[in-house]
């Protein structure tokens, strides 16, 4: 199937909160919304009075069934768009939006899959888990989420409730000692998965790709969404 695609529209911020001092969660009412598939993203464009614009892409966290569109944005140092969303945006503000976009990093619930996400790379995976939950496809989607600490990992509690395997690298979690995930932990999660989704920073994606291949995943079954520093 071809993933849905939407053109430029506007959205109004209905809810905004800051789960940590580096994250801002926006929930928007989108005008003439085209429902997304889990894993797709939106572009947010900011426009200054002199016509100058800045735009960045952000993955969607919400289930397609959610009446609002949820974005979780990590505030990057000096980030022009993320900084604005973090520090200035408030309820009632109208933002230019374009989406949904992307047809590759999308899970339609059609194949058994394993997701390996690092840091704010969990966002599209959260959309996939919400979708899986609603449609009773839980058995088809296994999730590994990697963060530095519990409090820095977006949606940590929700992912744990989903049954995700959480690996923290800077603090212990229960009786698991702080460490990145290692092949022995991955084998049962990878077993039977016909596709893998990796989302995170460049360094994380490179690590995760090797890890999955060492755990038995075929390279051509791995889909990567990788982000650099683009503020």
């Amino acid at each position, binding site marked *: 199937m071809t993933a849905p695609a939407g053109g430029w529209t506007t959205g109004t911020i209905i809810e905004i909160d800051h789960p940590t001092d580096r994250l801002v969660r926006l929930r928007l009412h989108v005008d003439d919304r085209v429902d997304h598939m889990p894993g797709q993203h939106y572009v947010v464009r900011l*426009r200054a009075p002199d016509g100058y614009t800045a735009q960045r892409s952000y993955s969607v966290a919400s289930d397609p069934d959610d009446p609002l569109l949820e974005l979780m944005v990590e505030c990057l140092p000096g980030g*022009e768009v993320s900084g604005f969303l973090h520090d200035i945006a408030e309820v009632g*503000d*109208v933002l230019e939006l374009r989406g949904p*976009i992307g047809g590759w990093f999308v899970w339609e619930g059609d194949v058994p899959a394993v997701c390996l996400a690092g840091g704010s790379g969990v966002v599209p995976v959260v959309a996939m888990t919400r979708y899986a939950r609603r449609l009773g496809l839980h058995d088809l989607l296994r999730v590994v989420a990697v963060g530095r600490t519990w409090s820095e990992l977006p949606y940590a509690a929700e992912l744990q409730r989903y049954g995700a395997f959480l690996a923290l690298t800077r603090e212990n979690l229960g009786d698991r000692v702080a460490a990145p995930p290692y092949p022995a932990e991955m084998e049962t999660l990878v077993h039977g998965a016909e596709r893998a989704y990796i989302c995170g920073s460049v360094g994380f994606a490179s690590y995760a790709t090797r890890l999955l291949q060492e755990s038995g995943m075929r390279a051509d079954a791995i889909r990567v969404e990788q982000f650099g520093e*683009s503020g």
Partner: protein
Amino acid sequence: MPITRGFTGRRRPERPDRLPPGQYDTGSSWPTLTAEATPSLSQEQWEEQWRMSVDGLVAEPHSWTWSELQALPRSSYVGDIHCVTTWSKFDMTFTGVSVDTLLEVARPLPEAAYVLAHSTTGYTTNLPLADVTGGKAWVVWEVGGSPLPRGHGGPARLLVPHLYFWKSAKWITRLELLEHDRPGFWEQNGYHDRGDPWLEQRYQGDP
């Protein structure tokens, strides 16, 4: 479209004539983006196994080994690159071989009008033939005088710097000449068939 309340913008380009609409100058950083697992072949394996092929609607389909390609007349591009994720990077120097040089050997047939570029990973991207001829496209293996790093598409990538950078396929291995346009990887997934940054042709449906 509405002005965003409270937004003034932090960066104004120093050289606005060099920055296409919606882009910003990434300065010294060079972000990497990829949709697939980066190939894990060693340089030695690569040089032994890799071929650069030109085929499809050509009079003489041809493949070059790594060393044969290196022996062709070299050509460099000095200038800017633009990624659809909104960064642009100025004053890059890439060195390799002009696609014109490869096409002189393969000789496109009159009906050839499009190119589908293939990577070793299975990645593909489509381009009008006119966008890779006339000194506008290269197969490159050096950046800034050093070997092109694996994450940036090394050992060799396509370079089509006047289009968004997803057209500059990493880990290039084949140019297939076609009569009709055939959407590549990102083009099947919502991105534009041509991708001119100055016309802001980011997504399917953009003019």
